[in-house]
């Protein structure tokens, strides 16, 4: 009797190990990244930010939990809060991407903050970014450096003005 259970347990364990990777694709493989860009900096400006669109093609919630880039000494996930007329920029632990949903990193909202740039970012350059998701999976992308005025022309800002 016991051995029957053991056998059944072993079979189940084996099955789950065999099928787990297929059933649970990594977050990185479920997230489609589009429209990445980094804003070019003004003379003396040592910080910049990366923006992009994260699309979740899976039926599970995912989250961006970190980013790194050779372009900056420190890379952090940030958001903007508009509190009583004050613009506050705060580091966040993660940026959620809901199942079958889309999260847009945009001016005045979530962004990937590049702190202490190793050199000024000029339009036309490419910035490599490694994005890390909640399960530890990574995705490497390259974001073009775009002049801020060009990004604002093509994309009207959606600022939160209802607080």
């Amino acid at each position, binding site marked *: 009797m016991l051995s029957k259970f053991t056998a059944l347990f072993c079979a189940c364990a084996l099955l789950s190990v065999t099928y787990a990777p297929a059933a649970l694709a990594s977050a990185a493989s479920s997230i489609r990244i589009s429209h990445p860009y980094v804003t070019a900096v003004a003379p003396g400006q040592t910080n910049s930010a990366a923006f992009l669109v994260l699309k979740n093609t899976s039926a599970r919630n995912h989250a961006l939990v970190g980013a790194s880039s050779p372009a900056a000494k420190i890379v952090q996930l940030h958001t903007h809060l508009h509190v009583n007329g004050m*613009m506050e920029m705060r580091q966040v632990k993660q940026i959620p991407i809901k199942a079958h949903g889309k999260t847009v990193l945009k001016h005045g909202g979530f962004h990937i903050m590049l702190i202490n740039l190793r050199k000024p970012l000029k339009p036309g350059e490419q910035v490599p970014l490694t994005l890390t998701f909640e399960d530890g999976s990574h995705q490497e992308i390259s974001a073009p450096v775009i002049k801020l005025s060009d990004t604002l022309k093509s994309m009207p800002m959606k600022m939160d003005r209802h607080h």
Partner: protein
Amino acid sequence: MKRIRWIIAALVVVLLIAGGFYWRSMRHPSPNSAGTPQGGDFTLQSADGPRSLHDFRGKVVLLYFGYTFCPDICPTTLTLIGQALSSLSPAQQAKIQGIFVTVDPARDTARKMKAYVRYFYPGLIGLTGNPQEIAAVARRYGVVYRKHEEKSGGYLIDHSAFIYLIGRHGTLRRTLPHGVPAATIAAALRQLLRQP
């Protein structure tokens, strides 16, 4: 009887919610609760010497506060200001002075401010001063700011992000909220230029 009980329960809920909002508003008074900022004259340092608001009498002055370490909000607003000014005729542009005042005088030197602001619009002036001078000007215009230490060792500055428009006689005429499009800034400037 049952109905009365329900009404009382509903009233209690409403009162609790209202009380909560009142308590919140007392704890976090809006920076503008004191009414419209008074504005007024000031003198601060540019890379080319001291500049006062009264130096620009006869011109419409656009005033904005921020800092060069500001990664998103300030460059975005300065870009919109640059686009608004560039959309006006050269004659109109000649009658407007854009000024960017730092709220981070510890890091923003006059030279740094000059190089920074010209990137957004060649005619912009960048001003700095000692912390007391900056605080005095900020108070007069209702600008609020505070240092926010980062775990990484650096700091950011939380700040209000209004654009102040000052008429030709040096009085504060309009305050534009953060995030207004360049066309709105340009329209407000044109309107002030039409006023005597």
